[in-house]
């Protein structure tokens, strides 16, 4: 009898003698024509992922990209891996079933701000809470792209769009605060203008066991052009992006002249290093068990017009859902032996008619 705890098609056990082949970006690109609008930020994210994959030491056939619906969600069609373009908002649910039954796979979820924070908000928070072994890339363009420009749950208040000609009335979600509140173990932010930073962030997200959440500021040049320009534009970056580096004091600016301090009441603030002294700066710690400080950092900036931290906010280990499920199966099997159908059918009282 085969081992029922594992899918029949796990052809690469841990001791697989076949080495992972050397690949290039081309091997990870499908033959499908990429159909995003010219100039869309999605292109550079796709390039970053395709260029990173050969570096990760993983197999194409053991890699799966899942998505919901939206412009961002077309992503799986362009990866030469296994993939599924599913329905609006539900990719984390589908990924939960796949990742828990197939621990041998690398499961990536690509989603938009509407897909993951509006219709799919429930699945997102629960996948993070359960710590399913998936890597979630949230392409945040603060707009509904595919449906041609309605405001989204990350659009700023008073945003004028096709569906809000007099301005939107809603307080937006802060995706990182939400993820941290949902108990995510790995939370990071990057942006579509910096390939190197994206690749590094994705590499770390992939390496993390359990649910990893990466928000990517992504420019929709058709319906929300320049949404992040004030912070990601080349000339603004050094003053407006705050790189978080584990173990280092948090500082930014061309000369490192700005920094972040932690106040006694638990709040964080941007300061001039000259005014407070270097030793007063907050030293970033990704592995802090308490998410409170990461939460404060996620709210340091009120929007992409103020100095905004990027990088890894939190990276802590928690028991992974699929592994725990498998553990219970192993324990039950060790305790009772492999399932016996005849015993199952007689688990109540049986009697015999001669």
């Amino acid at each position, binding site marked *: 009898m*085969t081992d*029922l705890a594992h*899918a*029949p*098609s*796990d*052809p690469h056990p841990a001791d697989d003698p076949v080495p992972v082949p050397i690949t290039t970006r081309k091997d990870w690109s*499908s033959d*499908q024509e990429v159909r995003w609008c010219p100039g869309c930020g999605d292109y550079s994210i796709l390039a970053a992922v395709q260029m990173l994959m050969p570096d990760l030491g993983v*197999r194409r*056939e*053991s*890699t*799966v990209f*899942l998505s919901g*619906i939206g412009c961002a969600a077309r992503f*799986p*069609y362009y*990866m*030469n*891996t*296994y*993939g*599924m*373009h*599913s*329905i609006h908002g*539900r990719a984390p*649910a*589908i990924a*939960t*079933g*796949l*990742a*828990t*039954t*197939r621990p041998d*796979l690398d499961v990536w979820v690509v989603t938009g701000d509407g897909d993951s924070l509006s219709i799919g908000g*429930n*699945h997102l928070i*629960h996948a993070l809470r359960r710590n399913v072994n998936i890597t979630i890339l949230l392409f945040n363009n603060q707009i509904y792209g595919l449906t041609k420009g309605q405001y989204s749950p990350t659009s700023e208040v008073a945003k004028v769009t096709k569906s809000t000609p007099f301005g939107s009335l809603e307080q937006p979600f802060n995706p990182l605060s939400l993820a941290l509140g949902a108990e995510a173990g790995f939370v990071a932010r990057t942006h579509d203008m910096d390939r190197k930073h994206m690749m590094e962030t994705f590499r770390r997200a992939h390496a993390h066991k359990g649910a990893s959440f990466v928000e990517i500021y992504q420019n929709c040049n058709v319906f929300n052009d320049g949404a992040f320009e004030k912070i990601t534009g080349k000339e603004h970056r050094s003053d407006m992006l705050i790189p978080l580096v584990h173990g280092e004091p948090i500082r930014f600016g061309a000369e490192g002249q700005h920094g972040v301090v932690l106040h006694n009441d638990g709040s964080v603030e941007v300061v001039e290093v000259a005014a407070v002294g270097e030793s007063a700066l907050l030293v970033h710690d990704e592995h802090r068990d308490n998410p409170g400080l990461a939460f404060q950092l996620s709210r340091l900036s009120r929007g992409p017009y103020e100095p905004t931290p990027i990088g890894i906010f939190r990276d802590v280990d928690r028991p992974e859902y699929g592994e725990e*499920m498998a553990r*219970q*199966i192993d324990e*039950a*099997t060790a*305790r009772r*032996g*492999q*399932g016996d*159908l005849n015993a*199952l*059918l*007689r688990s*109540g*009282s*049986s*009697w*015999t*008619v001669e």
Partner: protein
Amino acid sequence: MSNTTQPKPPHLLDRVVIRFAGDSGDGMQLAGDRFTTSSALFGNDLATFPDFPAEIRAPAGTLAGVSAFQVHISDHDISTAGDSPNVLVAMNPAALRANIDSLPKGATVIVNVDAFEERNLVKAGYESDPLGDGSLSAYTVYEVPMTSITTEVSKEAGVKPRDAERSKNFFALGLISWLYTRPIEGTMGWIEEKYAGKPLVMEANLRAFKAGFHFGETTELFESSYEVKPATLAPGEYVNVTGNTATAWGLIVAATRSDLPLFLGTYPITPASDILHELSKHKQFGVRTFQAEDEISGIGAALGAAFGGALGVTTTSGPGVDLKSEMIGLAISLELPLLIIDIQRGGPSTGLPTKTEQADLLHAMYGRHGEAPLPIVAAKTPSHCFEATVEAVRLAVKYRTPVILLSDGYLANGTEPWKLPDLDQLPDIDPGFATDPNHVDDDGNAVFWPYLRDPETLARPWAPPGLAGLEHRIGGLEKADGSGNVAYDGANHEKMTRLRAAKIAGIAHDIPPTDVDDEDGAEVLVIGWGSTYGAIAAGVQRVRARGHKVAQAHLMHLNPFPADLGEVLSSYKKVLVPEVNLGQLSRLLRAEYLVDAISFTQVQGVPFRAAAMESAILQQIDGTAERFAAEATGSTDTIEKGSLR
């Protein structure tokens, strides 16, 4: 009344219907369940009908809080839990009031007389005490001080006065066990095992149970005891199962036979939750159960597991069915195996959560946007849930399609003895995963086309991630025939739409022909589906016993129908379709076969009564329904209870 203290030999009965009724907190389901088990082990044929309120604990003593368990035991083959009880055990005035109307005149009523005090009478809405005002003169009433005797024997065991009366359900069980000559060792052993961790409770329950039994034996209240001899069931090994247990076991067996890991993604809902509970106990079979955040996630995760090469299953009921529609559509588009189990309950909306109905057939058939056909399989009795589940899995895996399995609240909670099947006789289920590229592209390269179909079944290859060279992307956008690439052109869409429909329609040739139970010369065919089976079979039997001819057919496959169904229908003068809905199968039959199907329906949250079925059939045969109905049951259960259209 007899004066002798010598035990009299028990009086033989061929069958009896007993209804245990009390407050939700009185433990009536437990008492009924134990009585059922000892009757099953004794060898009776039986059928049960648990009937409980939607509230876990409605205010004590009120009509809304009455919980009942009906069991029909017999020395011959029976198919229903009985139209009306011969014996009612009423633990309080509310239980009496809620059930007395379903008793035929002359029936036996055993009441816990201690509960008939002013306060309880008022709560039950009685203006005067029915035990004293003559209103029960048509029945044989036994007044038994169940609470006081139970309290007394429990206190002797050391139970706190406050808890002492809680064992009274075991007193009632003991009394009925004596009255119907049930062996008691089984129940005593069960009490000892079940309450091993709570010695006081165990002792109190044992004492109450024995006290009930001895009460029957020693008081001279009852004229004699009764016995229902074992039924002559076909030789074999039997267990007593509920439909939900049989469904859960069917899943484990089908998963094992197909060598697929079983994944259940689900969200708790009555009356489907017990499948989750049962499966979660059996992890040693590699079963993964996932209690999702909602129904959409439950089915989504099941579909994700199916994409990964597992047997993906979701279970639900009522409103949960609605939530799954979009994901079912995706599964139809992805052409992946997936099993959706709908334990139907009364609707719309929250409806009657604990009551049965079979009103989801048209939803299963059409409840999705676009042309989105899928196979539908329905179980007909509690134990048949096993076979129906295995069949649904077979179709899902072979045809790479979501399948809806319809059960309902009556099947889910009802029980019957089930002759254990020979597992080797079950159908083969071969996942037949894709292993190699299946196509050569224009440049002569071997490639994998996920939508290149098997010419015979029209099923597409199932290629879970993991194999090099078979990488592919699928999705809900329309796909090009063969390559599976995104395709928008109209001609391709029409082709794919027709292919998906033809794949499902073709299953008609892979299922057995209509199973018709006919006596030569019958002009009326009664055809049903799902849990009406028992009532239809009983009705047909009664009609035949009157010397009439009538044919019966019951459909397990509702989409597609068996290939010969049109022919079968057209060979009868009249086709009667009883359903616990407003006429859903009858509509499908009319649409598909232009047959003048006569719909006979009822939606009261309970199964049809055999007597109602009998008169509906007789009316079709010779139009004399009313007379026979009245005669058949002596109850008010005439044809007006159902509606003929």
